[in-house]
Structures are given as structure tokens and as C-alpha cells.
């Protein structure tokens, strides 16, 4: 297959992702402006971090005045899952030079990963394909953040339009998409309860990291019992 065809396929794979990123990036832009970020910072985060849930989380933590280190640690935890995706791409991409892979991997997201894996099920791996997919998706995210950021401060009081519930609603759907079996449901329940408990005892937003790490550890520890009872 020629490189023109591979680029065309990259664009084709990116199109459903772009449709998803445009409204989401727009909402991020609006919320970032309401959290007090200026337009440049709002867009810069989408260029440099480029991770949907982490950006929403960071914005809500910035708005609540959390410590910088706790925001960075939370981002780290949320984005650790990319380790799995990056590792899963190794069998397809190991023949390419590491410097290309170092560039390509900067734009791995849940969506581009899922799309590329589906594509590679019946296509040869291709850097033209993969870079097109990544750059197109990232560009749409940055563009949407910019447009949301421009609109953000024109909307007036955020709670009038229900924007004060946009982040909780976002967390609800992301969580529901993550609940794959009884084990994740149990871990999520423990994490939620611990998080509320720790937040009441201990100010400073460390409840998220502590509760998530503890709950995941409990999940690994009780796995054998749950598997047996199924």
C-alpha cells in the first residue's frame, strides 16, 4: 500500500474520534476558562498534556485550589493506564526507529489506541497511518479547546446553564464506561467511600490519590476470592 493510501486510512480512522473530541474539547475549554485559566493556558494544556479526563480533573482541582503537586500526582495516576496501551502497541511497531516511536507515543489516547488496534487487526502497521491518526485527533482536540475557551467567559454565571454539574456528569459516564465486571464495581465503591472519608478528615485533595491506590490494592488482594465466588 502506498503512503498516500495509508494517510487516507489514517484520516478515515480519525474521523469518528474527531467527532467525539470536538464537543468534549469544547466543554473542556469552557470549564477551563470558568476555573480561571486564560485562553493561552487553556489551549497550552490541550497541546502539551492532551489527555481528556486528566484535563477535566486538573481543571476541577485548580478551581478548588488544590496544591500543584497533588494535581500532578493525580494526573500521573489517571494517565498511568497509557502504560498498558503503549506496551500493547510494541508487537506492531517494534521494527521502527525509537526516535519515531518517542514522537508517536506522545499522542496515544484511549480512542486513538482503540482505533489503531482495530485497524492493525487486518492491516500492516504503518507510521504514515499512525501519525495521521494521531495528529488529526490531537489537532481537533486543540481546536475544540480553543473554541470552547473563546466562548467560555461569554456564557456568564456557569450554574445558570448547569455547568456546575458538567464535571460530575462527565465523571459519571467515564466511570460507568469503566465498570466492566463485579471486581471493578467493588473497587469503585471502595474508592468512592474512602475518598469521601479521607476528604472529611484531611483537606488538600490527597483523598483522590490515596483512595484510588488503596482501593486498587484491595481489588488485587481480594481478586482470588471474587473469582472463586463467581
Amino acid at each position, binding site marked *: 500500500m502506498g503512503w498516500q493510501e495509508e494517510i487516507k486510512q489514517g484520516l478515515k480512522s480519525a474521523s469518528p474520534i474527531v467527532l467525539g473530541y470536538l464537543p468534549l474539547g469544547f466543554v473542556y475549554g469552557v470549564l477551563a476558562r470558568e476555573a480561571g485559566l486564560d485562553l493561552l493556558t487553556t489551549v497550552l494544556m490541550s497541546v502539551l498534556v492532551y489527555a481528556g479526563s486528566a484535563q477535566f480533573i486538573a481543571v476541577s482541582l485548580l478551581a478548588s485550589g488544590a496544591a500543584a503537586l497533588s494535581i500532578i500526582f493525580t494526573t500521573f495516576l489517571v494517565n498511568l493506564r497509557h502504560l498498558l496501551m503503549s506496551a500493547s502497541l510494541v508487537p506492531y511497531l517494534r521494527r521502527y526507529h525509537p526516535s519515531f516511536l*518517542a514522537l508517536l507515543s506522545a499522542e496515544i489516547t484511549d480512542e486513538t489506541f482503540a482505533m489503531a488496534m482495530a485497524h492493525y487487526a487486518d492491516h500492516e502497521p504503518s507510521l504514515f497511518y499512525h501519525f495521521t491518526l494521531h495528529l488529526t485527533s490531537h489537532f481537533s482536540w486543540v481546536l475544540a479547546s480553543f473554541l470552547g475557551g473563546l466562548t467560555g467567559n461569554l456564557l456568564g454565571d456557569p450554574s445558570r446553564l448547569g455547568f456546575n*454539574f458538567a464535571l460530575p456528569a462527565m465523571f459519571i459516564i467515564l466511570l460507568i464506561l469503566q465498570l466492566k465486571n463485579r471486581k471493578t464495581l467493588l473497587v469503585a465503591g471502595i474508592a468512592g467511600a474512602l475518598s469521601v472519608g479521607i476528604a472529611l478528615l484531611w483537606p488538600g485533595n490527597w483523598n483522590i490519590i490515596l483512595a484510588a491506590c488503596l482501593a486498587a490494592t484491595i481489588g488485587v488482594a481480594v481478586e482470588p476470592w471474587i473469582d472463586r465466588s463467581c
Partner: protein
Amino acid sequence: MDRQILLVILGMALVTYLPRMLPLVILSRTQLPNIFLRWLSYIPAAVLAALLAPALFLPEGRFALVGNPYLLAAIPTSLIAIRTRSIALTILCGMAAMVLLNYI
């Protein structure tokens, strides 16, 4: 631009880039330990639940079960989320529920 926020963004960018890049570039011939992979598979759900629960139960920093619009709005929002599994629809429904609750 606020320096503090710039530092937060640079820190976030670094800790996001490393887990994306390292396995593909370096670990290509070794395997991550299985128990760590299993721990990792719980992290997204755990972090989201840890974020969501205080947003719903501690809206003003205090525990509130009754007369709490966040908790009430979460009910239709969750139903839509389960039914449609659509991020955009769920957010729109959540915001609409919140607006309605403010009028009641």
C-alpha cells in the same frame, strides 16, 4: 500567564508523556509484572469514583444526603449514561437536570 499554572501544566505533560512513551521505546523486549498490570487495570475506575463521590456527597465540603441537588441530578444522569453510553449526551442531560432542579 500564571506561573503556578504553567508549572502545573509542564508537570502534568511530563508525567503523562512518560507512561505513554517508555513501554513503546524501552520496554519493548521486557514484560511488565502481571500483578502490576492487574493493579493498573483498576486505577481508572478507582480514580473516577474517588473524584465523583466527594463531588456528589460533599458539595459544599460537608456531608449532605437530603436537599442535595448534586445527588439528585446524579440519578437521571446515571440512567442516561447506562442507557446511551454516550459522553456528550450524559453531560448535556446532567446539566439539564441541574438547571431543572434549580427551578424547583
